[in-house]
């Protein structure tokens, strides 16, 4: 029981770590936004700036309170894990590094909320001080703090990286809010231009610090694809590339197009930039829960081992299990060539078959969505019905020990946590199908229900990228991640491309409307080639 609780708390610890990083980034971005970006100017309307300032201070207060709450929970959960694992009392926990630095962040966040509610003159000098305190304390729970070599350099690089992330990604919610609150085009233009200039500088520092840290934490080209840490950093880099693309488009639009033409487009691109940006921060939280690649040279998977696992093969669409006694017949082996037990082989057969059936359905969904996009096959618009097919598959076939294909009764199956989760996911699929068919039938502009599907796609991708990583079976887990991480990234892109298709002005929807079905095709193909042995 205690072990299960510790496991649950350790999982919560990673979720809360992600929460602290997101709130911390928003807080940092908010401080810069209220003190510099949204300053009054002759180029902007006084009334609009006042409206922006008021809402930005509110959002800053909210992010500070959010950080304090999440930090408090993080301290509680980590303290509980330490007390249960090391068998020590709270009196000894309070001296731990994480407790001291977490408490400092908590107090500084509360002070930020208080300062942001009081005199703005005091806030102008107090907020930068509090920002430095939060940064310094926060970085002490990073990889950098526990390194044996190059610690000061890594701590400095982490500070720069987190600060730049905050100023850019963390500032985006304030920009979205400002563009909503501003009443006139000139103010929107003024704010976006100032933010864009600051974001450009932040990107420079972010990429530079990120590159140096990647070299120091990954250590070799082989480890980029041969370790989970390297793969996750690669995922971050790919998403950063997409962000830079969006940011670059925004930057060029600001300089080469007229204000009234560009602003509606810009606002929607910034929303997608924010969504992908938050996903990058969540991925970073996941990275902090695993050892750097440079510490696991003996656990690095070779290119040959990767090729053996990812080379295209015929999908397994049947559940042909291996009998307990198969004599001297050749057995499936793991990544290191060690023969697998019958139970492991059969578990893998079940998992692979499930993935391949899902892949077939997702591939069909993507192809039908592409077909519908051509406008020549209106019937293909009903592709969300395939989601109901997934639900039926989950309920009838996915759990081979369950009724109607297995020996377990209906009641016993619902009581199994894993089966329960699968079936809940099945019900979610039915929900999606209903949502999406309704949205496609009604074709209403700005229909809030239409946002559910893209947001769930993006969230699903983010969850794939945020989960924790195993320290045992490191190589096998890396090979699983090699298939799941790209699918996570593609799902994030699919979600935000669909979001843009729905939100952009009608004449700008062509590109995103092709991107997301293509992403579905890629995810389907990835699932069809998924293997565990």
């Amino acid at each position, binding site marked *: 029981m205690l072990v299960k609780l510790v*496991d*649950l708390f*350790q*999982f919560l610890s990673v979720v809360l770590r992600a929460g602290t990083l997101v709130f911390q980034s928003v807080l940092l971005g908010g401080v810069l936004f209220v003190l510099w970006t949204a300053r009054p100017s002759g180029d902007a309307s006084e009334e609009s700036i006042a409206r922006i300032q008021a809402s930005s201070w509110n959002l800053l207060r909210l992010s500070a309170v959010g950080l304090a709450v999440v930090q408090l929970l993080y301290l509680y959960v*980590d303290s509980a*894990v*330490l007390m249960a*694992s*090391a*068998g*020590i009392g709270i009196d*000894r*926990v309070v*001296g*731990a*590094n*994480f407790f001291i*630095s*977490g408490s400092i962040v908590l107090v500084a966040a509360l002070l930020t909320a208080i300062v942001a509610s009081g005199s703005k003159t005091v806030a102008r000098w107090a907020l930068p001080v509090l920002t430095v305190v939060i940064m310094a304390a926060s970085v*002490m*729970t*990073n*990889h*950098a*703090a*526990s*390194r*044996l070599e190059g610690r000061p350099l890594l701590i400095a690089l982490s500070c720069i990286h987190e600060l730049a992330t905050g100023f850019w990604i963390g500032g985006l919610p304030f920009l979205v809010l400002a563009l909503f609150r501003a009443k006139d085009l000139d103010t929107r233009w003024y704010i976006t231009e100032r933010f864009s200039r600051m974001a450009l500088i932040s990107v420079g520092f972010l990429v530079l610090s990120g590159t140096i840290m990647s070299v120091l934490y990954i250590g070799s080209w082989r480890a980029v694809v041969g370790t989970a840490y390297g793969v996750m950093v690669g995922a971050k880099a790919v998403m950063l590339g997409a962000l830079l693309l969006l940011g670059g488009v925004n930057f060029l639009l600001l300089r080469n197009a007229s204000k009234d033409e560009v602003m509606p487009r810009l606002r929607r691109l910034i929303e997608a930039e924010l969504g992908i940006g938050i996903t990058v921060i969540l991925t970073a939280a996941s990275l*902090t*829960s*695993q*050892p750097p690649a440079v*510490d*696991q040279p003996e656990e690095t998977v070779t290119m040959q081992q990767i090729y053996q696992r990812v080379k295209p093969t015929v999908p397994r669409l049947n559940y042909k299990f291996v009998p307990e006694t198969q004599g001297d017949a050749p057995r499936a082996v793991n990544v290191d060539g060690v023969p697998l037990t019958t139970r492991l082989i059969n578990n893998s057969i079940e998992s692979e078959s499930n993935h391949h059936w899902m892949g077939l359905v997702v591939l069909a969904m993507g192809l039908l969505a592409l077909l519908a996009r051509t406008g020549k096959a209106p019937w293909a618009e009903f592709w969300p019905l395939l989601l109901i097919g997934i639900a039926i598959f989950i309920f009838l076939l996915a759990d081979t020990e369950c009724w109607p294909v297995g020996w377990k009764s209906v009641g016993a199956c619902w009581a199994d946590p894993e089966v329960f*989760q*699968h079936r*809940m*996911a099945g*019900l*979610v699929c039915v*929900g999606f199908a209903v949502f999406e068919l309704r949205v496609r039938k009604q074709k209403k502009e700005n229909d*809030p*229900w239409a*946002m*559910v599907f893209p*947001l*769930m796609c993006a*969230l*699903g991708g983010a*969850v*794939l990228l*945020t*989960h*924790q*990583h*195993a*320290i*045992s079976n490191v190589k096998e*887990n890396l090979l699983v991640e090699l298939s799941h991480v790209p699918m996570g990234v593609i799902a994030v892109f699919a979600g935000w491309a669909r979001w843009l298709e729905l939100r952009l002005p009608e004449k700008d929807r062509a590109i995103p409307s092709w991107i997301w079905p293509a992403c579905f095709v890629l995810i389907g193909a990835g699932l069809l080639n998924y293997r565990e042995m």
Partner: protein
Amino acid sequence: MLTALSRRTLLVLIVLVVAGATQVSWAHAILRESTPALKSTVQGPDVDITMRFNVRIDGSRSRVLLVAPDGSTSTLTLASQSKPDILQTRATGLKPGAYKVQWKVLASDGHMSNGEIPFTVK
């Protein structure tokens, strides 16, 4: 803006998907080397135990247990750290048999990790 109903629906969906899709496991500090080495045989009855990790360890908030051949466990007292990545202790009066050292350590960045070192005393 989303309606109140759709916001609630969205929240429920998010919780379901996160609950269904999140994998749980845990990792951080790695044992680089140890004495006794993994699955090695050592001479008893007194055994010095040294563990070197990949990161700085908070020794005063870490715990090392010895699991005897009969399954009973005892907590080993850690010596004060000579280096930030090393933990040392000593098990005394060990009879021949298969033992396990179970370690649960706190890294300086606040992450707990655990593992075991099986070894045999001859």
